């Protein structure tokens, strides 16, 4: 036998307890959606996992109203330390159910279990732990003493890191005192709904977090809803642009985390074997479905051939297949639609004259798959060097001097991430200083930590997530009273409250109940 044909080592699905149908999570309870339900499938098998409800306009109204009510009645009145207690509780419950969440995420998204187990879910817990600690320390968040929360946050997240993106959005929003209506991506709603069960377990007051599902139109209705004070979106640049347009002229605060075409710069004095690992991690982690992926490799011309030979050799050890197998490195592409886009751009790369090379792995019969691929002889004018492919496809370009590397790295409409590989510390600092990217990794790639802010320049969006900076997206300076004259309207967001005023009386009785829970 060949040892490297490792025997199957599938993670058990026994601890999953999935329902066949999932409703919307509004005001602390699951309710049926009024839109047409849709199926969520396992992209590795194309089999249905469950039916998911669609929220129509009335459902969005209800969710926003529930969030407004919870904001006014409970959440904005809780002390920071009490909000923190809920967040700590959520973090612990995520840890307790980590294996179950990892399996569900892998089923629904197609990413390998070793990533959901070792990266996604641990980071989800870490994000809640981190912001739990911030909840009673907002004076130090950088927006002045006694900062105020914004109100209801509408959050729309992508399918590449479903639960992790949820955590990046919900944790800082709640820590800062906002309430939330979140819409997960259409193809990956499942773990958000499991997370809703965790919120019930945690006794989070009803309406503080509402999770509504559906397609793009549900998201559009949500961000355009007059009752929200804050819109946070992670996803494609085209949708981000549309959101920016629709939010323009309103007083909604907006943060966008959009696409990228990250440059991974390898200098000739780089620790070469680790650089090759970093290139692999940069573009093949999560099938390349990473907005900050190192999708453009800029390698110094003098070591190009050596690096490419080592890279190809290393890529041959990548194991593509059943995402639930613990030895799988490359899982399934999330959807047929995404697969089509990756294919289209890759074919275009070939037509443009770049040299295509893929690993000779066996592609499973069912499901959506794309073999890890690199393009050499790529020019800066090629589409595959400019467009975000969002798949396991690397474009290799060369440079001769640090100045050329910097110029080429910055020559993109995006500005999310970059990597620098060199044994020379002074060079790393000098180059990093000149790169226009929100995140720059030195001798590593695709590392995430809740204490580190993340976000982009230019068409990669604005606003930061993570760290102290991530709180600023959900806070505003204290509403000042006293000697300085401020128009009365600014004292309290009256106009925003009026949207839910009619429902206030109906929910008054629930206030005391929620307040009681909060003191537990």
């Amino acid at each position: 036998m060949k040892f490297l044909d490792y025997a199957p080592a599938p993670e058990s699905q026994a601890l999953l307890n999935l329902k066949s149908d999932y409703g919307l999570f509004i005001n602390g309870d699951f309710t049926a959606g009024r839109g047409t339900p849709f199926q969520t499938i396992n992209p590795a098998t194309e089999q249905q996992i469950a039916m998911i409800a669609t929220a129509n306009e009335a459902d969005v109204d209800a969710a926003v109203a529930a969030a407004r009510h919870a904001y006014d009645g409970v959440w904005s009145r809780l002390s920071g330390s009490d909000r923190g207690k809920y967040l700590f509780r959520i973090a612990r419950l995520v840890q307790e159910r980590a294996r179950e969440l990892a399996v569900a995420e892998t089923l629904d998204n197609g990413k390998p279990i070793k990533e959901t187990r070792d990266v996604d879910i641990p980071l989800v817990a870490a994000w809640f732990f981190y912001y739990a600690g911030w909840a009673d320390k907002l004076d130090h968040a950088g927006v002045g003493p006694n900062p105020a929360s914004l109100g209801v946050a509408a959050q729309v997240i992508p399918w590449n890191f479903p639960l992790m993106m949820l955590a990046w959005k919900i944790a800082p929003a709640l820590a800062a005192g906002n309430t939330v209506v979140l819409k997960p991506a259409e193809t990956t709603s499942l773990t958000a709904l499991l997370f809703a069960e965790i919120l019930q377990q945690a006794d989070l007051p009803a309406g503080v977090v509402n999770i509504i599902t559906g397609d793009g139109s549900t998201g559009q209705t949500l961000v355009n809803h007059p009752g929200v004070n804050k819109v946070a979106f992670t996803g494609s640049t085209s949708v981000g642009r549309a959101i920016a347009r629709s939010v323009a002229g309103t007083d909604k605060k907006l943060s966008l985390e959009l696409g990228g075409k990250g440059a991974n710069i390898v200098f000739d004095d780089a620790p070469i074997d680790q650089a090759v690992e970093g290139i692999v991690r940069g573009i093949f982690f999560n099938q390349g479905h990473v907005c900050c992926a190192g999708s453009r490799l800029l390698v110094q011309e003098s070591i190009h051939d050596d690096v490419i030979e080592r890279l190809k050799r290393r890529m041959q050890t990548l194991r593509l297949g059943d995402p639930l197998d613990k030895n799988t490195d490359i899982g399934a592409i999330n959807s047929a639609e995404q697969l089509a886009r990756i294919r289209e751009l890759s074919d275009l790369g070939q037509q443009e004259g770049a040299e295509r090379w893929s690993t000779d792995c066996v592609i499973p019969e069912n499901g959506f798959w794309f073999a890890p691929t690199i393009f050499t002889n790529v020019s800066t004018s090629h589409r595959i060097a400019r467009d975000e492919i969002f798949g396991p496809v690397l474009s290799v370009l060369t440079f001769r001097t640090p100045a050329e590397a910097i110029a080429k790295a910055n020559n993109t409409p995006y500005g999310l991430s970059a990597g620098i590989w060199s044994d020379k510390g002074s060079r790393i600092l000098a180059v990093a200083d000149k790169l226009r990217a929100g995140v720059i990794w030195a001798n590593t790639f695709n590392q995430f930590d809740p204490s580190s802010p993340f976000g982009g320049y230019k068409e990669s969006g604005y606003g930061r997530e993570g760290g102290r900076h991530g709180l600023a997206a959900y806070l505003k300076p204290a509403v000042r009273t006293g000697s300085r004259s401020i128009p009365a309207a600014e004292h309290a967001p009256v106009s925003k409250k009026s949207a839910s005023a009619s429902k206030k009386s109906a929910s008054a009785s629930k206030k005391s109940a929620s307040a009681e829970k909060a003191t537990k």
Partner: protein
Amino acid sequence: MTHTPLATYQPEQRALALIGGEATDANLRRYLHGIPGIDAVGLEARAADLGTRSIKTSSKRWAIDTIIGLIDLTTLEGADTPGKVRSLVAKALVPDPSDPGTPRVAAVCVYGDMVGTAVNALGSAHAAGGTEGVNVAAVATAFPSGRASLAIKLADVRDSVAAGADEIDMVIDRGAFLAGRFGQVYDEIVAVKDACRRVDGSMAHLKVILETGELNTYDNVRRASWLAILAGGDFIKTSTGKVAPAATLPVTLSMLEVVRDWYRLTGVQIGVKPAGGIRTSKDAIKYLVTVAETVGEDWLTPHLFRFGASSLLNDVLLQRQKMTTGHYSGPDYVTID
């Protein structure tokens, strides 16, 4: 796979061609310091990642038997006696009396004065460098510190070879290496290699112990690995087992990367032996995975990979019994040697 003309050189010429001149301190320094560095965090992350491979069922069964066949069963104590060595040899030949199908280990590893005892105890099962049976490896060159004159070290080697040792595990002069006297380290390895020659002209296999725990940095480990291979070592070995830390997965990975690069450069396969500190099947399987995914599974043969270990064998046997019978036994169901 094609190789550069370096493959056709004699080993000594090859080294000189690569270094670009005589093996002086200056030439060797220029060469060794021209090798790309190692990022410690990245190396350790990669090793940890390889350690997460899940080896189950048929793969595990194969791995367990392979590990046994790669072990240099070792006793290196001041208290070693002929009786202890005979007992070790018996264990090497029949690792598990309850299952005669258990493979034999690759070699027994002893001090030089015990080589004759080991050879006698093995009798017809002495592989003598062949593929059937068990080899005898001897530590030499003033093991473990290496602090003796070159004449003494060479006498130590010749003595063991004459007594029938098939493999010599030498130590490099770490003091000379750390002081930058690369030429001295190189010349010593060349001299020891020469001393491995038997009267009939054949050679005992030379394993070069770097004692990575004393070299301290991965960059030093990588340079020492290149130096040992350039000088003609057949194997590079991590540790004596007398210094902590002994073998670690990242150190072994960095050595395997050198071996892989040397093969790319010359077409010559060099062996790797992590020694000391590998005590469980689980750990040993991580090494197999690291070998297979770094240099290829061709290396998982006794000619190219060994575990220097004593307590590892019993843990592997317990795992083997568990896979055969379906339940765990206990330490009294494997023999102490």
